[in-house]
């Protein structure tokens, strides 16, 4: 076939060509209307049933397990008696151990684990960064500074009915996030500037905390005990304080899974699909930060849950945030309840800070998950 110079048709250039080669992929027709629909990744009843069964099992074990053996059947009979108004097999002291110590402690661990893991998944989605965790924007350092100031300035308030420490930690956590947000916004509208602002705020608030701690070394032990986090002294008061934030955040995050998948395309493509990325980001970060602040205020800094749990879900179930977000809430609860069992067991009758356990067990466990998911990464 001859190809000729344009505009004058004069050329001796020759090429070999097939008249109409079959392309690598011929545009196909529409699908057969009877063809099965493609399977989209969604949270299924099976996912939920497995997650609920897992959580129920772990919670039951955690309630039954403790320094004083209440007896599994007696505890179950007590629960049945409470539900039906029957006679309790437990003594008054045993009932108090069960209802005033163990149950609120386990419930708080569930709520805080769910809050941290759900928030971690949300942060990873918003920032499209697998390294993100709920403390990325300064929640931990803000809470740490607030708590440190209270312990140093007003140590006698630790035993107040409604102490200023959780309030200061809560305000500090939200203050850290707000400061990062303001600095990030002033430097541009992107997620990278927000993360950098978070790093700067975290460093600054941590430095202030350390300065305060070093000038009040007598409070160091107490401060560090708080910083490592724990649910040891929890009662129903802590549960009631955390509950509304966790419920609110869980509802928002559960509903935003699809939108976080869209954000995964990047801001430009998300906008081309009619989404307003800034609004979605603000709503998700606000919900996640409120839950994180409430959790930190009640239990101190518990690391690794918010980072590792979303990855476990992503690598073992599915990568879509429609699944990662809701399942992270459940798996976070399971993870922290298990960590708390370990925390109150290994040094019994003493206790380890649960933050030490989450990091100590979470890191190797995560390494195993990484290895196990090799070759079928999602």
């Amino acid at each position: 076939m001859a190809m000729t110079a344009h505009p004058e048709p004069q050329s001796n250039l020759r090429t070999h060509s097939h008249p109409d080669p079959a392309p690598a992929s011929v545009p196909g027709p529409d699908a057969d209307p009877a063809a099965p629909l493609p399977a989209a990744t969604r949270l299924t009843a099976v996912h939920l049933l497995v997650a609920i069964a897992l959580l129920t099992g772990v919670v039951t074990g955690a309630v039954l397990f403790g320094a004083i053996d209440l007896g599994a059947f007696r505890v179950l009979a007590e629960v049945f008696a409470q539900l039906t108004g029957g006679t309790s097999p437990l003594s008054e002291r045993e009932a108090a151990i069960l209802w005033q110590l163990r149950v609120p402690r386990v419930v708080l661990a569930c709520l805080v684990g769910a809050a941290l893991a759900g928030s971690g998944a949300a942060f990873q989605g918003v920032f499209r960064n697998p390294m993100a965790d709920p403390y990325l924007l300064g929640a931990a350092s803000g809470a740490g500074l607030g708590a440190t100031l209270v312990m140093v300035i007003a140590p006698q308030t630790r035993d107040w009915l409604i102490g200023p420490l959780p309030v200061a930690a809560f305000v500090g956590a939200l203050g850290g996030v707000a400061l990062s947000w303001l600095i990030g916004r002033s430097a541009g509208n992107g997620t990278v500037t927000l993360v950098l602002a978070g790093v700067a705020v975290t460093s600054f608030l941590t430095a202030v905390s350390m300065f305060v701690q070093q000038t009040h070394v007598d409070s160091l032990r107490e401060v560090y005990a708080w910083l490592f986090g724990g649910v040891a002294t929890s009662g129903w008061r802590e549960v009631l304080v955390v509950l509304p934030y966790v419920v609110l955040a869980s509802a928002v995050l559960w509903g935003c899974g699809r939108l976080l998948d869209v954000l995964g395309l990047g801001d430009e493509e998300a906008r081309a699909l009619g989404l307003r990325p800034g609004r979605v980001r603000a709503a998700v970060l606000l919900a996640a930060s409120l839950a994180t602040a409430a959790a930190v205020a009640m239990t101190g800094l518990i690391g690794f849950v918010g980072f590792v749990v979303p990855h476990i879900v992503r690598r073992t179930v599915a990568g879509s945030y429609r699944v990662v977000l809701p399942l992270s809430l459940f798996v976070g609860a399971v993870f922290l309840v298990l960590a708390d069992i370990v925390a109150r067991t290994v040094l019994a009758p003493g206790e380890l800070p649960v933050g030490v356990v989450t990091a100590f067990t979470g890191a190797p466990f995560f390494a195993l998950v990484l290895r196990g998911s090799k070759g079928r990464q999602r």
Partner: protein
Amino acid sequence: MSTLELREVSAGYRDRTVVSGVTVTAGRGSWLAIIGPNGAGKSTLLKAVAGLVQCTGEVVLDGRPAAGLGHRERARAVGYAPQSPELPEGLTVTDYVLLGRTPHLGPLARESGRDLRIVRDALARLDLDGLAGRSLRTLSGGERQRAVLARVLAQQAGLLLLDEPTTGLDIGHAQALLDLVDRLRRDEGVTVVSTLHDLTLAAQYADQVVLVDQGRVVAAGVPGRVLTPELLATHYDARVSVLTAPDGSPVVAPVRREVVAEADPVSEATAALRPDSTVDQ
């Protein structure tokens, strides 16, 4: 009624204007190729149509000023495939294509069976039905490009903006992809505006070619009028021959500066073309 009209459109980023005073029209079912050297403003012009950059002048979609459309309404009218799309690695092909239904859903709504049927059709059109459950991470370059186009098709917009849709594709896959787009516009009246670096492909598929340089339209019209050695030399700083394919469309062939005439037959052939049709810089 034309599907897309740009009237004196200028667009850019913050205080930097990238394209200025662009006026072009693309009729329903037509294919408009935007060509120009690197940095000419081609992608920015597409983004201006999609509403992704600051813009003055008027973008008119189906007779309606685009500025008056809501975000989702505009996204239902305009499908946009960027030059370097981000593909979230955790998603399957189906999940990814399903995101194309976003403009048709409320913020917290779930996709219906109808949305899944549309996704199934988009996957079938691009021969992706066999890969529907695969992770995006495992796709080849060509499969990824097809997945991006499937996502845009699932959007069911009347205007497709394709920024270098054949980047990274071999010639077979590039043709297959462009053939599909061509069929869409012929069968369904979809209007296509694309940037293309490959000028020969632009000439073969587009009805109209718009040559942009330094943010301004410097030539527009049917491919044979715009793809001349003189215009390409002036605006691309390139030495080319423009040949004619059997179907009459122009073929743009680059020409080396140093040609050793006796070295081999291809050089001889190229040398033979030089006196008539090559503009040397």
